[in-house]
C-alpha cells in the first residue's frame, strides 16, 4: 500500500495507551505492525479507603506528553524519519471517569477508576427503586446496573464534591472518559480543545442508547445527569482533531477506542464467533457477534466491537467482565505473603488421571506420597475453592454484596492449595462467561466455529496459570505473541481512517506466532469441579447486605436434592395409572354385568 512517499517502514502510526497501571506511547510501522519505538510510565493508583480507586488526571496528561516526547526522540535516534508519522490513536481503559472545568482546564476531582466501588450506596438506592431489577436499563444501554460504569460515578461526584455541583450549575463542567480527557488536552485544551468520545467508550458510561448510538435523554434522566456535560459521540475511525503542541504538532488524531474492543481487534478476531480473553488485574472475555446486536439474558454486556467510520456498519460483542483475576494472585502475594510460584509438576496428578483414567488401577494405586516422592509434586489438588469476589461479582452475576470466600478448608490444606484455588477461580469465571455466551447464542451454527479462546494480557505470560485455565474451561487456548493487542487494534483503526490499512490487509499481514495450550482434564472432571465452584459462588453472595437476610435463609434452605428423587417421583404416577386402568376395567365389567 505504500506509495513511495515514506521510508523503509512505510507509514507510521503512534498510539497513546492508558491502561489501569501504565501510560504508554507506541509507534508502529504499518508495513508489518512492528513497534519501532515506545516509552512507558507507571501510573499511580490512589486508594483512600477500601473499595476506592483513583488516578490523577493531570499526572495522566503529563505522563502521556512525556511518553510522546521520549518515543519521538527514540525514533529520531533510530534514524527513522518522524515525519512518516501520519496519525495517532488513543486507547484507554473504559469506565474511568473525569470531570474538569472547561474554562480553567483543571480537573474538578481525581479520575475515578472503573472498578471503584464508592458509588455502591447510590447503586443500592437505584436498585431499591427498580425493585432490584439489575437489568432495568439493559434494553436501552446494553448494560446492567453496576457501579463500574461511569453514570454512577458522575452521580457520586455531583452529590459529594461541591466543586462539581457548582461547576455544573455554572455550565463550566465537562465529563469525559480518559480518551476524551487526552483528546481535549492534545487538541488545545481551554483554547481549542475537542470534546468528543468514541462509541466504545461512550457505551461503557451506561448513558448511550446502543441502538441509536447517541446519548439517551431517558437514561440521563434516570441517573439524574445533565446532558450538556457529555462529549460528542463519534465512531472509532474518524479524524477527531489535530495535535496542537509538541513534537507531533499538526498530526491528526485518527482513532480512539476502549481497551478491550481494541484488544479484540488487535488479536485479529474480526469474525463472528471468535473469542478474546484479556487477563490483567481484571479479566474480560469478549465474543465477536458480528453485525448482530444480541441482548443477553445471562448476565453479559451487549458491547460494541468497533465502528470503523462514520458511515460504516457497527460490529457488536457480548462481553463478560470479571473483577478479580490477576489481582487475586497479587493479593495472595502482597497481603497474605504466600509464595505464588507453582512447581512445574503440579499438573502431574491431573495428567495421570487424564491419560490413564480416573478410575484405573494404576492411577488409584499410586499413593499421593509416591507421587510426591517421584514426581516432585508440591501439592496435590485439594477440595478447596476460592471465590475472589473482593468487591462484589460482575459477569454473569452482577452482585455488589458478594465478598471473597475460601471454602472447603481442612487441616491438610496448604498455601499451595490456596494458590491453586486462586488460579482456578479465574478459570471458573471465564468458563461461566463462555457458558453464558453459548446460552445467549442458541441459533448459531456451532460446527463451523472452533472451541478456541484467544488469550492476552499481562498475566497471560504465566505459563502455569494459562494451563490451569485451559484445564478448567476445556477449550484450546491460543496465545498470540502480540506485544500490545490494544495498541495494535488502535493502530489498525487509525490506519483505516488514513486509508493505509484495511481489515483484510491486517488479517493477512499482521498475524503473529501463536502458542497453543490444550486441556489436560476430562469432561467429567471439569463438570465435578464446576459443580463445586457453583456451590461456592452461592455461598459468597449476600454477605455484605443485611437487608436480604431472609433471602439468605431461603437460599440455603434448599439443600442437596435427594438423589432418589426421580425414582420416588415415578411411584405416584405409576400408582395413578394403575388405579385408572383398574377403574376402567371395573366400569366395563359393571356395565355388562349390572349388580341388580
Amino acid at each position, binding site marked *: 500500500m505504500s506509495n513511495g512517499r515514506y521510508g523503509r517502514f512505510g507509514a507510521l502510526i503512534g498510539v497513546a495507551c492508558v491502561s489501569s497501571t501504565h501510560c504508554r506511547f507506541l509507534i508502529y510501522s504499518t508495513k508489518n505492525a512492528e513497534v519501532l519505538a515506545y516509552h512507558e510510565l507507571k501510573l499511580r493508583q490512589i486508594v483512600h479507603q477500601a473499595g476506592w480507586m483513583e488516578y490523577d488526571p493531570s499526572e495522566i496528561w503529563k505522563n502521556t506528553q512525556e511518553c510522546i516526547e521520549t518515543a519521538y526522540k527514540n525514533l529520531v535516534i533510530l534514524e527513522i524519519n518522524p515525519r512518516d508519522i501520519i496519525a495517532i490513536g488513543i486507547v484507554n481503559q473504559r469506565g474511568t471517569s473525569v470531570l474538569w472545568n472547561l474554562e480553567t482546564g483543571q480537573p474538578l476531582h481525581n479520575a475515578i477508576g472503573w472498578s471503584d466501588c464508592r458509588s455502591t450506596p447510590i447503586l443500592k438506592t437505584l436498585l431499591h427503586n427498580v425493585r432490584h431489577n439489575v437489568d432495568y436499563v439493559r434494553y436501552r444501554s446494553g448494560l446492567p446496573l453496576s457501579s463500574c460504569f461511569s453514570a454512577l460515578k458522575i452521580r457520586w461526584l455531583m452529590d459529594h464534591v461541591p466543586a462539581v455541583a457548582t461547576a455544573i450549575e455554572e455550565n463550566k463542567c465537562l465529563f469525559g472518559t480518559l480518551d476524551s480527557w487526552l483528546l481535549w488536552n492534545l487538541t488545545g485544551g481551554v483554547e481549542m480543545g475537542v470534546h468528543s468520545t468514541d462509541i466504545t467508550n461512550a457505551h461503557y458510561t451506561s448513558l448511550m442508547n446502543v441502538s441509536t448510538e447517541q446519548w439517551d435523554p431517558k437514561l440521563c434522566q434516570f441517573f439524574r445527569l445533565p446532558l450538556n456535560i457529555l462529549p460528542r459521540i463519534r465512531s472509532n475511525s474518524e479524524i477527531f482533531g489535530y495535535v496542537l503542541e509538541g513534537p507531533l504538532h499538526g498530526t491528526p488524531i485518527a482513532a480512539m477506542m476502549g481497551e478491550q474492543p481494541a484488544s479484540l481487534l488487535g488479536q485479529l478476531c474480526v469474525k463472528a464467533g471468535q473469542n478474546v480473553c484479556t487477563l490483567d488485574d481484571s479479566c474480560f472475555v469478549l465474543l465477536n457477534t458480528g453485525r448482530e446486536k444480541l441482548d443477553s439474558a445471562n448476565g453479559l454486556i451487549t458491547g460494541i466491537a468497533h465502528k470503523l467510520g462514520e458511515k460504516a456498519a457497527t460490529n457488536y460483542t457480548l462481553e463478560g467482565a470479571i473483577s478479580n483475576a490477576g489481582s487475586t494472585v497479587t493479593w495472595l502475594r502482597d497481603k497474605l505473603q504466600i509464595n505464588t510460584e507453582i512447581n512445574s509438576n503440579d499438573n502431574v496428578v491431573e495428567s495421570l488421571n487424564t491419560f490413564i483414567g480416573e478410575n484405573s488401577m494404576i492411577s488409584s494405586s499410586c499413593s499421593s506420597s509416591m507421587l510426591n516422592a517421584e514426581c516432585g509434586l508440591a501439592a496435590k489438588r485439594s477440595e478447596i475453592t476460592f471465590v475472589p469476589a*473482593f468487591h462484589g461479582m460482575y459477569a454473569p452475576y452482577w452482585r455488589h454484596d458478594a465478598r471473597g470466600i*475460601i*471454602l472447603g478448608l481442612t487441616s491438610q490444606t496448604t498455601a499451595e492449595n490456596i494458590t491453586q484455588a486462586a488460579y482456578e477461580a479465574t478459570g471458573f469465571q471465564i468458563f461461566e462467561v463462555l457458558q453464558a455466551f453459548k446460552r445467549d447464542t442458541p441459533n448459531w451454527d456451532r460446527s463451523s466455529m472452533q472451541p478456541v479462546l484467544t488469550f492476552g494480557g499481562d498475566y497471560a505470560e504465566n505459563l502455569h496459570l494459562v494451563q490451569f485455565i485451559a484445564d478448567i474451561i476445556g477449550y484450546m487456548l491460543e496465545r498470540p505473541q502480540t506485544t500490545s493487542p490494544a495498541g495494535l487494534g488502535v493502530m489498525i483503526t487509525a490506519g483505516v481512517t488514513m486509508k493505509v490499512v484495511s481489515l483484510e490487509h491486517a488479517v493477512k499481514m499482521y498475524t503473529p506466532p501463536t502458542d497453543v495450550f490444550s486441556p489436560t482434564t476430562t469432561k467429567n472432571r471439569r463438570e465435578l469441579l464446576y459443580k463445586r465452584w457453583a456451590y461456592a459462588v452461592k455461598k459468597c453472595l449476600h454477605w455484605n447486605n443485611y437487608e436480604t437476610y431472609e433471602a439468605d435463609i431461603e437460599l440455603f434452605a434448599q439443600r442437596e436434592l435427594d438423589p432418589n428423587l426421580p425414582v420416588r417421583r415415578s411411584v405416584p404416577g405409576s400408582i395413578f395409572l394403575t388405579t385408572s386402568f383398574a377403574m376402567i*376395567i371395573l366400569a366395563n365389567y359393571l356395565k355388562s354385568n349390572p349388580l341388580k
Partner: protein
Amino acid sequence: MTEGKNLPHSSADVPFRSKELRKQSLIQHTGLVGVIDEGTKTIGFSIYTTPDFKEIAAHRVELSVITPQDGWYEQDPLEMMASINKCAEEAIKQLPEQGFSASDIVTVGITNQRETTIVWDAVTGKPLYNALLWKDIRTSTTVEQIVAKVQDPNHFRSSTGLPISTYFSALKIRWLRDNVPEVRQAIRERRCKAGTVDSWIVWNLTNGALHITDVTNASRTLLMNLETQAWDPVLLKTFGIREEMLPTIHSCSEIFGKITSERSPLRGMTLSGIMGNQQASLLGQMCVKPGQTKNTYRSGCFLLCNTGDKPVFSRHGLLTTVAYKLGPQAPTIYAIEGAVSVAGHALSWLQNKVRILPDSRDAEKYAEMVPTSGDVYFVPAFTGLYAPYWRQNARGIIIGLTQFTRKNHIVRAALESICFQTRDILECMHQECGYEINKLHADGKLTTNNLLMQLQADTIGMPVFRSQLMDSTAFGAAMCAAQADGVNLCQFEPEKRYYENVHYDTFLATTTDVERKERYGKWKRAVERSLGWVIKQKKTREYTEENYRMLSSLPASIFLISSFAMLVHSLAASGQ
C-alpha cells in the same frame, strides 16, 4: 472462695504465671501425689505436695500425631507408655532439690485425653492398631450404618447423653473390628482388649492385672448408661461389642491397685485417681457448684458446665457426661459439655500449612496489628462442626475477604472464631440447663494470649477468669487421687479450704450489647455457609438397599400398567 486475687494481664512461665506467689509453705506436708497427664499433644508427669497442692516437679514431652489421610488422626500407644516412663523418671530426678525423694510419693493419679481408643492383644500386650484419636473422622461410614439402623442420630441420648458421632469410642471399636483383620481375629479368639487411654496406661503399669476405666472416661464411649453407670446391654448389642473386651467401670477416686511394671519408675506406688482431662480441669478450677462453667483452650476447646447431681439431657447437641464421682459411694456429679474441635489448631494450621503466621505463639502480636478482623470471619470446621451443630458435612471457610484483607486480619479472625464458638456453646448451655452463667473460667496453653482472653470477654459479654495454672487438669487429678478412700492425704473441701493455686486474672467485656449482637449474628451466617460442602461419593449398604427396593418396584409397576393397557385394547377391539 473460688474467686481469688485479681492479677490482670499477667503473663508468666509455666506452670505458674506469677513466680512471686510461690511462697515458702509453712504447712506440714502429708505426702506427695504424682499425676500422669496424657493429653493429645503432650504427655507429662507432675508431682504435688499435699494438702496445699503445690507443684514441685514436672516434666513434659510432646507426642507425635500420625495423619495417614485427611481426617485420620492416630498416635502410637507404645510411644505413649515410653513417654510416660521417661517423664516420671525425669520428674523424680527433680525431687532431691526440693528435699523429697521418690519414696515420699504416696499415690499416683491419671488424667487423659478422652474418647481416644486403643485395642490390644491381652496375651502379648501389644497394640493391634494405633490409637484412634478423639478427633478422627474415619468412622463416618460406621456412623451412617448405625444411624441407618436406628433411624435417629439422637437415639441413645436419653441413656448415654451422647449423639451417634464419629467422636465416641464405640464407633471406633466397631470400625477397627470391621476394617482391621488383626483386630477381627483377636476378637474371634477372645484375646482382644479395648479401652480408652487410661485403661491402656493402667494395663501397662500393672502388667495386665487391671483392665479398668473410670466413670468419666466410660461416659464418653457411647456404651455406658448414665443412670446405672454400667455398660448398657442394648448398646453393646447395637455396636456388636462384647462386654468382656471392655474395662470394668470404677469411680474416679478410689484405690485401684499398685503399679507393678518393672519398666516404670513408679513401681510400688498406689493408683488412686483417674479422670478424663476435661473433667479434671473442671475440678481443678473449682467449678463445683451447679452453673459454674470452665473452658480449656488447647488445640480444641472444651466447655463443661456443672449441672449438679442430676443429668441434663440436651436437645441442641451438647453432651451430657459425668463430671466426677469422688468415691464408690460418693454422689455422681454430672456436667453438660460442648466441644470446639478447632481452636489452637487453627493457628498451627496458619503457621505450618498456609504459612501466613511465622509462629503460632506470636498470634497475639500479629492479630493486635489490626484493630478489627476487617469483617473477615473464619469458621474452622476442618472435620465438620461439633457442638451445638453436629454437622459432618461442614468444612472450613474464610469469608468476607476484600482486596484490603491482610494476613493479620485472618489471624485475628482465627482468634475470634475460638471466641464465637465458645459463645455458641454458652448460649446453648444457658438454654438447656436454665442456670445463669455469669462468668467463665479459662485454662489451657492458649490462655497466655491476652488478646484472645479479651476478645472472649468482649464476645460473651461476661468476665473471663483465667487460671494462674497454665493447666489445671493435673491439679484436679492430683486432688482426686489424694482424697481417695484409703489414701486420705487430705479432704476435698472447696467450700472451707483455701487453695494457693486458685488465683485468677480477670478480663472484663469492653463491648456493648448491640455490637455483640451484630457480630454474633454475622458469625451465625458464616457458620451457615460452611455447611453442606462435602459431596458424598458413595452410598452405604443400607442406603443402597433402600435404593434397590425402590428401583425393583418399577418393573412390576410397568408390567401391571402394560397388562391393563393390553386388556383395554382387546376389549375395545372385541367391541368393534
